Structures are given as C-alpha cells and as structure tokens.
C-alpha cells in the first residue's frame, strides 16, 4: 500500500485504486453524482480560486500542500492513514485477535449502518453552510469556510469509499442515498437532527465548527478504534483534517469575544449591539444552543446498540488503548444521573457497557470546557466581569433521559411555565437571530474585516491576514 497519494489518477488515492478495476468503476460512477450534488448543494458563492490545503501524503510530516484552487476542481480523493501490520483488536470479545481487513459477515449490517450515519453528517454541514460565503466577514474566513467545506466533501468520499469497497451493491446504493438526503429537506432530511438545523450566520458557523464538528471528532475517534481496519485508518486520517475545523471554531469564537471585549471597553457598556458588536449574553445563548444540540448527537445515555458495537469490536471508546481496564466492561458499573418525576435528580447504577455514549459525551464535555476557559480568559484579561458557562447537560435536550424534562442551564428541573418564561433568556430568540444576521455584511476586501469580529492572530500557512486568500470574480 503506497503511502504517497497517486494524484495522476482520476480519483486521487493511496489505496491502489488502479489495481481494482471494479472498485474504480464504481467510484468513477459515483463521482459525477457527487459533482452534481456539489453544484446543487455546495457553496453558493463563486470564486476564481481559493487558497486551499490539499492532502498529498498521509504520513506524519508534510502531508499537506497549499495553493489557490478553483473549488469545484479540488481533488477529492481517498486517503487512508498508514497501515500498522501488527495492529490487534483492542476491546470487546475479539480482543487480541488481528484486526479485520474485510467486513465479517456477522457484523456487515451494523458496520454499514455506522458508516452510513457517519457519512450522512459529512455532506450535511456543507449543505447547512451553503449560503455563508455570501456574508463572509473577511477573505481569511471565506477561505476557511471553503477549506472546511471541501474537507467535509472529502470525508464523504472517505465513507463512500468504504461503502463501495466493502459493502457491494447495497453499499453503492447507500452511497447514492448520502447524496439524496439533504439537510433540512422536508422530503428526505439528514438522519441526525442537528444536521437539519440551519447555520444561518457566521457566529453559528463558529459555534458549529467548535461544538458540532467536535462531536464529529469524538465519533471519528471511536471509529478509529474499530477492529475493521480500513474504517480505522480512514477515520485516523479524517481526524487530521478535522483538527483544522476545530481551529476555525475555537479561534472564530475567540475573535468574536475579543471584538466584543474591545467594543465593551471602548464604549464602556455591555450593550454593544448598537455599536456593531455581539453582546456577551447573546454569545452565551449561542453556546447554549449549539452545545446542547451537539450533545444530542451522542445519542441516548444508555444504549444497547453502543454496547453491542463495543462487544463486537466495531466502535471503541475515545483513546481505547490508553484506558486501563479490561476493555470488555461487562463487570464494571457506573452511575447515571437522571431527572426524576418530582423535579429532583436521582442516580442509578448501571453496567458501564450500557453507558458508552455517556462515557464519550463526558470526554467531549471536558474538551468543550477548554474553549470556554479560553474565552473567559480573554474577558478576564480585558477586565470584564462576565464569564461564559456550559449549560447543564440536561438543558434543552431532545434525546436521551433528559428529553421531555425542562432543565435550566444551571441544572434545576422546572415546570413548563418556568421553562417557557426562561427560554428567551437562555436560547437565541428570533430577534436575536435577526440582529446577528443584520451584522452579516460581506467584507471581501484584502486585509479588511467586519465590525463584529477581530482579525486572526495569524494567517494560514504563514501568510499574513491581508493575503488574498480568495480570488473573487
């Protein structure tokens, strides 16, 4: 298996595609459908070239190449991380056996389902972000949007490759289905709820790339542990690309907070809306919304499916190999906090293996907390007495044990009336969204930036902020 990517092929790849005529034909059949989808559902804004990162190798060093690329000509392809020939199954009932290079018949349906669900999220975010290019706050941000978009497209390719290569005709049908469902479509929506929400403004985009893409990071992290080696290697490489999306989210929110802090000091008021900034309590509302919608992506706290996937070795825990336990979890227990009917919290002891979604979510929550700390440090450094907080995991949930309960951001269980009264304080209202949208004017001049966000501390690949990241028509 060459580590180097074959860029001469119609579909760039490092999986020896030219030697597998059947697979090549299948993927070449899918390619125009993908291009058609990109044309219909991809970014609305037309450009003459975007300074994009393209993977040229999957090794540890120097894997990316930067250049201006006409977006539809981006070379989407199939890149798997290097193979470890000695890799063994790290958990579940097959622990210690060599990893699988083929799909075991017994787990065919489950693996296919996992890949389809992961695959379904990738093009979804492109669809959600379709219109954002029209209101980019700077060329730097516009470039990042396109980078995120093409890589989500690439991640779709990664899942489609697995479906085509290992799941036969049904896999090909499912690969086509990934393009037939569309975010928010009334007829054929995306499978998971969060991917049918609108990403209507750039603050939402930063929040999405911080919170929702971070869910993606953790999901990919668990699939990277999979005993099905091609899936593991695919996800490993996707994680490399995903890191950039996190960076866009983290620094994006940083920059909004930085700018808001500047405006607060400049005008000596928290009410910076009239001065073209986004008030801190509004940012908090966005955090509340995007964080909780993303928590829903982890699924129900107790999950038989997740347990079955774990036992079968299909999907592990975050950093499974670093965990110090038996990697079977049949004898371990863990407590689950849950809302009781009388408005109090109770807890129940359950088998750890049934709480894997909760385990993953806890890792995620801790990670999200680091961002909040960063943003609070910006405020503290500016001498502003305000702190962002992640809401309680029971707040605003549609999935799992908290759905059907009304929980405040502080974690108090309240009745319907209290919830309705508080909702406007906790979640973005229509007026809030309209206000944020009113700030969204495109700034396409080199070196210029919109009023509501600070410029980045550094540019891309050592280029300055005023570099012409995007050539516009």
């Amino acid at each position, binding site marked *: 298996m060459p580590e180097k990517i074959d860029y001469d092929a119609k579909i760039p790849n490092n999986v020896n595609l030219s030697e597998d005529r059947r697979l090549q034909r299948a993927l070449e059949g899918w390619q125009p459908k993908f291009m058609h989808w990109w044309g219909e559902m991809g970014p609305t804004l037309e450009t003459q070239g975007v300074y994009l990162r393209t993977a040229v190798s999957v090794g540890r060093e120097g894997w990316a190449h930067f250049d201006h690329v006409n977006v539809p000509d981006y070379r989407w392809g199939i890149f798997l991380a290097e193979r470890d020939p000695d890799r063994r199954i790290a958990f579940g009932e097959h622990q210690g056996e060599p990893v699988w290079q083929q799909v075991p018949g017994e787990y065919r349906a*489950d693996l296919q389902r996992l890949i389809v669900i992961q695959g379904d999220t990738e093009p979804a975010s492109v669809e959600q972000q379709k219109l954002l290019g029209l209101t980019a706050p700077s060329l730097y941000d516009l470039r990042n949007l396109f980078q995120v978009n093409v890589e989500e497209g690439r991640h779709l390719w990664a899942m489609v490759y697995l479906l085509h290569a290992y799941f036969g005709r049904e896999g090909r*049908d499912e690969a086509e289905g990934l393009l037939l469902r569309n975010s928010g479509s*009334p*007829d054929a*929506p995306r499978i998971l709820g969060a991917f049918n929400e609108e990403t209507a403004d750039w603050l939402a985009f930063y929040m999405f790339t911080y919170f929702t893409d971070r869910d993606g990071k953790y999901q990919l992290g668990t699939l990277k542990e999979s005993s099905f080696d091609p899936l593991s290697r695919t996800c490993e490489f996707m994680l490399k690309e995903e890191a950039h999306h996190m960076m866009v989210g983290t620094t994006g929110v940083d920059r909004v907070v930085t700018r808001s802090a500047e405006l607060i000091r400049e005008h000596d008021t928290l009410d910076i809306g009239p001065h073209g900034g986004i008030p801190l309590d509004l940012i908090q509302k966005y955090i509340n919304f995007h964080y909780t919608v993303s928590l829903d992506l982890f699924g129900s706290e107790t999950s038989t499916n997740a347990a079955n996937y774990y036992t079968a070795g299909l999907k592990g825990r975050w950093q499974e190999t670093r965990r110090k336990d038996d990697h079977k979890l049949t004898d371990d227990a863990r407590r689950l906090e849950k809302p009781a009917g009388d408005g109090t919290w109770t807890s129940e002891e359950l088998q750890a293996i049934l709480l894997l979604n909760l385990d993953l979510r806890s890792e995620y929550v801790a990670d999200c907390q680091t961002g909040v700390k960063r943003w609070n440090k910006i405020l503290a450094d500016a001498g502003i007495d305000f702190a962002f907080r992640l809401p309680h995991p029971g707040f605003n949930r549609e999935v799992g044990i908290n759905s059907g309960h009304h929980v405040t951001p502080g974690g108090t269980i309240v009745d319907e009336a209290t919830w309705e009264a508080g909702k406007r304080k906790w979640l973005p209202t229509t007026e809030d969204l309209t206000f944020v949208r009113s700030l969204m004017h495109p700034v396409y001049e080199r070196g210029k930036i919109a009023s509501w966000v600070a410029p980045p501390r550094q540019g891309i690949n050592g280029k300055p902020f005023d570099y012409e990241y995007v050539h516009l028509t």
Partner: protein
Amino acid sequence: MTTTTPVTFDRRPDEYRHWRLRLDGEVAWLELDVDEQGGLVPGYELKLNSYDLGVDIELYDATQRLRFEHPEVRVVVVTSAKDKVFCAGANIRMLAASEHHWKVNFCKFTNETRNGMEDATAHSGQTYVAAVNGTCAGGGYEIALACEKILLIDDNSSTVALPEVPLLGVLPGTGGLTRVVDKRRVRKDLADVFATRPDGVKGKTAVDWRLVDELVPRQGFREAVEQRAREIARESDRTGEGGIELTPLEHRYVDIEVAKDQVTITVKGPENDPGDLHEEGANGWFLAMTRELDDAILRLRTNEVEAGTWILKTVGDPEKVLAHERAVLGAKDWLGNEITHYFKRTLKRLDVTSRTLIALIEPGSCFAGSLLELALAADRQYLLDGPPIDDEDSDERATIRLSEANFGPFPMGNGLTRLQTRFYGDEDHLAWLARERDHVLSAAEAVELGLVTDAPDDLDWEDEIRIALEGRASLSPDALTGMEANHRFVGPETIETKIFGRLAAWQNWIFTRPNASGPEGALRRYGTGQKAVFDRKRV
C-alpha cells in the same frame, strides 16, 4: 413474568393509553403512541412504540369497536403518532423477562388480533392500510403485514425489517414469515435475505421485493395517505349506519367456575324470542353471549394457566337459540354480518386454545346449531343418555340439533366447517348429516351420526366423566397441547393454520431453547451489550 392482579380485557377508547382512535367519516385513523411507562406489568419501558399485551388489548378493542360502532368506516389507517418510528414490535425486555406461557399466550393473542384485522378487510369491507411513517421493525412490520396495503414513507432512511432471527435468535412470531411469502408473495430467497438482515430494507427495494406496496413522499405524507385511503374507501362495499355501542360487559350469559385444574364454562341460552337486532344492540343475546364468551376465553387463557381442562356446558331452550341464530344469519345487513363473523372468530379462539376441551351435553342444555359448534370445537363430547342426575323422575332428555350454522357460516382456520373437519374426506357422511339438519337428535341418533364421543346413561355418567377428567389431568400438559392441536386441524393448510400451527410450534420450541432463552441466549443477552452464545449443533 407474573402478574399479581388478573389481566382484564375491558378497554374504552377514551381511556386508551397507547392508541388514539380518530374518526373522519369513512376513514378512521388508528395512531400508535405508546406510553413508555404504561407497561401492563412493571419491569420494562415500552420504548420506540414497542408493545406488550396491554397495548395489544387496546388494539383489539379498537378493531372490535370499529366493526360494531362504526359501520360508516370503510378504511382504517394504522400509523404512528411518533416522529420517525412506526413501531419497534414486541418489547424485548418484556419478552426476555416473561415466563414461557406468557410469551406464548401473548403471541397467540397478537396473532388473533392481526387475523381479526384481515378478517375485517375480507368480510366487512373495512380495509386496513398501514401508513408506515418511520422505522418499522419486527412486530411493527407484522402489524403492517396484517393490513391490506402498506404505504412506506419515502425519506431515504425509513426501513421495514424482521430482525428477530439475527438480533434475538427467535422468529417473527406474529405471522411475519408466513405473510411475507404467502400473502405478499415475496420470493422465498428474497424473504430469506430480508429476515436475516437486522437493518431491514428501505424505499424502492422494499417495493421491488413486494415488502410494501407504495412509497409516499415525506412532505405531505398525511395528506397523501388520506387521499389514498379515500380512494380505497370508494372501492369498499361496506354500507351501514347507526353503529351500536359496545357497552361495558355484564356477565349474564356466560358463567365461569374455576377449580384448581379445571374450569367449567356454562353458556346460557336466550330467555326471550329475538327482537330487532339493531334496537337490542349489545343487549341482544347472540352478541352479548359472544362478547362474554370471547372475554371468558381471553381471561382464562391469560390468568388461569394451570386449569388445563375446560368443561363446556350450555343451559336453555334450543328453540330460542335457533330463533336468535336465524335472526342473525338471516339479517343480511352489516350488523348481522358483524355478529356472524365475531362468533366465528370467537369459535376460532376456542379452536386454538391450548386446553383440553370437553363438552358435557346434559338434559336442559341447548347444544343446537351455533351452540353445537362449541361442542364440535371440543376434543370430546359426552351426552347424558337418561334423566337429569339430580331428578331421575324427569322426562327431560339431552338432545342436540344441527342447523345451517353447522354447514358454513363459522369456518375454522383451515377453511373447513367443524363438521367437515370431524368427518374429513367422508362426503357421504356429510351428506347424511345435511339430511339430518333441523331434526331433534336423541342420544342414540347422536351416537349413530358420530356427533358425540360417548353417551353414558345416568347410572354410569358421574363415574365415566370423573374418570375421563381425572385421566386427562394426569397426562403431560405439553403432550396434550401438541396432540390436541394436531387433531383439531385436519386437511389443508391456510395462512392461519400455518401461523398458529407451524410458525407457533417452531417459535415455542425456539423460546425454550438455550440459544434463545438460556442465560447466555440471545433473548436474555439482548440489551446487555454482550453477544449470545449459541450451541452450534443443528437439531
């Protein structure tokens, strides 16, 4: 699973916990909205619109009311009130925690309810249409299969599935396997693929394989289903108005006496001559008796599992029974039709009841026509040839009578009458019986015609019956169940007999096997995240 309080089958639409019945002229909507916390027995949550016996009892109640209370309804749309999920089928934790007999009885009842839906479509012009608006698995798909048409939401992700074999190590036990190949004529190799994949089949493939009839776009799903329902309603021949209310049951005509291992069911004949069927409504003898008998069978099967022998008796005037029977069979309108088919279904329940059934025909009884069917459904019939035991001076003698009711309107699941089943292939004998129709038949004649097992005289009666019953009670209940079920259904197989015989037998066997029900079996391991351990030997 054991219950401390006996299960009842009385339900009212305004008290349903799991279904919503909405009427809109000739179309009725039955929407499944299972209350997760509303399980019949503690210990499980009914997630994802999964069901237990309690959910199904409500469904049965709804189907009955639609037939009797709503003659204007021509199409019943079965759908889910929950988003993205139609029905996940029988609740697995309930099954896993249940004792064997509970599982089997539950399966039997769900089967009878599904058959009842098909019966409504076939004989009452009340067509069931499944509007599958989300994931539909196992028993959920079996509900859809019991409908005449299956419409599947076309959202590129909703599937129909029968995942029992791959996920649980058991069978889709409510007719799924049978209906897929027999009713929907899915090719057997495709049926094999379908029933072994846990994730099911969606969209166009589901249509191509005949697993569903049509795809309906997600947007405007309800409107499209409604439009389809109206079209189907136009093709129905159901006519009628002035439905009759199924009032709460009074136990007037069916008496139950439970001893430890034996139950005596006494059906009382009508006191008066028949009046107007519609005016009498649920108070009319035939319907009231049928409802009480139906309820008695269901409650006894569920609550009295160790009472292995049921003694069937009747008391009353045979002439009045026949007069009421003629009023029903001769009514030639929707209500007469409904009562006829309801009595037919109730007799079918008796046919598939796993209890020894013994009919005791004594002086003062009224085993005539439709009530003689009770005796013919029994495994043995004893007729007392002499005066009543407690009044040896009386002239009263036990007799039986054949009527038109014994020659067609109440077929068994095998499509034959109980007489055709009893004298299978003996056309001459059946012709002879036809000539004896409407005659009062004495003990000697009943013996000669082969309509009773034995006719002991009054000196022998008590000992004969005691010995027969005691002998019966000493035999293995399992062997008896198997033997009786074999004897009761001769002749051709139908979808119904396959479901109750072949499919149920396999399921019962599988349910007791360690691969399903052992500590490491698939049913017990389900939901633990651990995989089942199978004994790989094929048996």
